[in-house]
Structures are given as C-alpha cells and as structure tokens.
C-alpha cells in the first residue's frame, strides 16, 4: 500500500487525532498494514503478546473462551480503536483472548516494544493511551454492574442502546447499526441464552421499537429502547 495512504489512515485514528505531523510520521514508520477476511482470527489464545493493533476498517470482536468451552464477547471494536494488550510486560503471560474479524478488516500493527518507545517520546500520545484504557475500564465496570442490577431484558435493551450509540448512523430519525450481530453473539455479550435473545428481539420488533435482518439492526424508537434498558 502506498505510504501516503497509510499515513492518511493513521491520521484518522481517534488516538492520533490532532497530533502533530512529526509524531504521526514516526508512528507511520514503524507501522505495518494487513487485511483480514470476515471470521478470520487476528490473534490466537496463547500467542505471545507482541503487537498492538490499530483497527482502520471493519469491526473486530474480542472474545474469551472459558475452561469449559463457553464463549463471552468482551468487546466489539470499531474503526479508529486500538486493541491488543497495551498494558503487559514483555515477559508477561500469554493472551487468552481471541480477536475475530467481522467483515473485511484493515489493521495497522505496531510491535509493542516500538510503540512503548513512541509513548516515552510523546507524552501527549502516552496520556491518550491511558485515557483509552481508562475508558475501556469504565465500559467493563458498567457491564459488571449491569449483570448484577439488571434482568436479561434490560441488559439486552441497554446493550442495543450502547451499540447504536457507538456504531449507528442516523437518517431521518432512524438509526441503522452495522455490523449486525447474531442472536448468539448478543447472548455472549449480555449473558443471555440465544433463545432468550431471539424472543426479546422479536418482542421489540412487534412493538415497533426495532427491526433487524441479517445485514443490520434498525432502531425506530431510541427513547423507548433507552427506557426499557433503565
């Protein structure tokens, strides 16, 4: 890929927003681009944690498999976000998470040791990474809280709200969210059985609050959805 293009891509990462040219150019020098097809795994459990990934295009789901083979989705990440272990030592334990491409995915990778050098050099970037990790921390806190405070129906409703806020596009008051997640995946995200997800989504469709097909989720009535999730 042309150098110019890569540079342009980097510029559109949230974490690099508004950074000066010099910093951007230096990040660009140490970054490599790669693409993944849908459902392809981006890293595997037990693989040494050596790279940081910047997601340019597409979506990635981060999941974890429990010892007894159950899956939970920790996060769905969209364009502009960073993933991979930002916080480990080089001799740290191996990753026990799986990142899977949803749709065509374009990723920029940087060796973690190189990235850490960059962070030491550019305090502003360093601080942004802290904020990024901090924001994720808040998101996880929120999910733990919801699992305790809310029943399944509320959890699914408030998940849809967050998902729409993060990835949705509004047109004439109607929100369209892509990528659509399977009912199974929504179950993995909210701690609900697939059947439960299906019956709740069908209920929401009957009430004209949402609609969905295999390609997208549509939200007709965000206010009502929010209320159901509270």
């Amino acid at each position: 890929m042309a150098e110019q293009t890569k540079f342009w891509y980097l510029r559109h990462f949230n974490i690099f927003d508004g950074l000066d040219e010099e910093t951007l150019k230096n990040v660009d020098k140490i970054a490599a681009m790669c693409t993944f097809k849908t459902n392809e795994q981006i890293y595997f459990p037990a693989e040494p944690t050596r790279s940081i990934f910047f997601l340019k295009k597409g979506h990635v789901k981060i999941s974890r498999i429990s010892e007894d083979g159950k899956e939970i989705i920790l996060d769905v990440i969209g364009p502009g976000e960073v993933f991979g272990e930002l916080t480990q030592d080089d001799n740290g334990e191996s990753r026990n998470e799986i990142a899977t491409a949803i749709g065509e995915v374009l990723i920029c990778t940087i060796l973690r040791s190189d990235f850490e050098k960059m962070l030491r050099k550019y305090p502003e970037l360093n601080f942004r990474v802290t904020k990024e990790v901090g924001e994720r921390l808040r998101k996880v806190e929120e999910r733990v809280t919801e699992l305790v405070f809310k029943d399944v129906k509320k959890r699914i409703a408030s998940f849809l709200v967050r998902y729409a806020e993060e990835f949705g596009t509004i047109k004439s008051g109607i929100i369209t969210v892509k990528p659509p997640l399977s009912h199974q995946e929504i179950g993995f995200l909210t701690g609900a059985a697939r059947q439960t997800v299906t019956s709740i989504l069908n209920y929401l469709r009957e009430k004209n609050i949402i609609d969905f097909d295999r390609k997208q989720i549509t939200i007709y009535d965000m206010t009502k959805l929010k209320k159901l999730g509270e």
Partner: protein
Amino acid sequence: MAQETKFWYLKHFNILEAVDKATMMKLNDMTTMSTVKANQPIYFPDEQSASIFFLKEGRVKISRISPEGQEIILDIIGPGELFGELGLIDPNSDRDEIAQTMEETLICTMRVKDFESLMMGDPNLNLKVTKWMGLRLRKFEERIPDLMFKDVNKRIVGFLAKYAEEFGKIKDGVVTIRPALSHQDIGYLTGCARQTVTTVLNKLRSDEIIDFDRKHLLIKDYNKLKTLYN
C-alpha cells in the same frame, strides 16, 4: 505528619515504583495526606471528579448503588493503588461511584490537573498508570464470565480465592485475610443475597476449608477452595 515520613510512604507505593526522585519530590509537594477512620465515605456519586487519590494504608471499597437501592462493590483498593481516576479519563463528568474506607486509612489527595502534568513530564509514571488500569481492566473482565455462567456457590468460592491472592498472608499453610469482609459485602461483590453468602460460607466452614470471625477470614485449604471453583 513529618516530611520525612510522608516521603518514605510514597517511595513504597507500587504505582510509583518506577518514578524518579525528582517526580517524587514534586508529587510530595502536590499532595495532602489525611487519615480517615473506618467506614467513612471519601467521595460520593455526582461529585465532580477534580481529585485523584492514592491509598497508602488500609482498604477502600468502590461501589455503585442502583436507583432501587441495590449495591455492587466494584473493587477493593489496597495500598499502593490509585482510585477516583475518573477525572483523568473524563474531567467533565461526575462520579457515579461511592468510595468508602473499610478500615482506618491513610490517603493522599491531589488535583487531577497536577497529576496530569506530572504524568506528562514523566513517561514512566504515565506507563505505570496505564499498566495499572490495564490490570484492573483484566480483573473486571474476569468477573464477567463468573457472573454469566457460574452459580452463586462458585462465584463466592472464586471470589474468596482471588481475594486471598490479592490481600492474604500465608503462615503455616493457612491464609489469613484482613479485613474480613461482612457477608453483606461479599454479597455485593458477587451479586448474591447476604443469606446466600452466609449459607455458602457456613458450609465451607463445616467442611473445614475456611474459617471466619468478625475480624479474620482464614483459608485452611486453599487448594480445595480452588478445586471447588473449577
């Protein structure tokens, strides 16, 4: 408190382990130290998050309370850790948690703005803060599958094992954990009713795996406890 003593404490902070002497001196000037008695609030929800806190001695619990009055303990903070870090991530938002001391506690308070400028000037400190946040992130992520898949029995057992790892002291094969948590608190941490906690703990006691009184929690058979979780 004498300057000498205050400095000594800071030196033994985990989060400040990698920090050089110059930063440490600055930090010393920016913080105020105070002793807080047991069971006192340090901050409330809806307060502005203009301060950040370092815990030197004692334990602090961070909880959320639902509109219906349900409570969840998100975290128990130990010496060497930060808390109230929201101001770093999102300076304009109000806190949504309550922080309370669990025993007599020694706390250093500083303005978020000051800490931020300190981080900007010291990349090691910044990286350390990021790493600490990453560790907390993992701790939270690990609670999600427990809440989704494990029954109350296993959640409580798993919590005891983790709590022992973090705060316990081993002597002659017996792990002593202080402060002992109330059954209510263990309920708030694991998402179950106090009565359930009492039943589970009594069973563990009669099986001679643990013992407890109001001040101590003893784990007599740590391996068995772990087996029960898996």
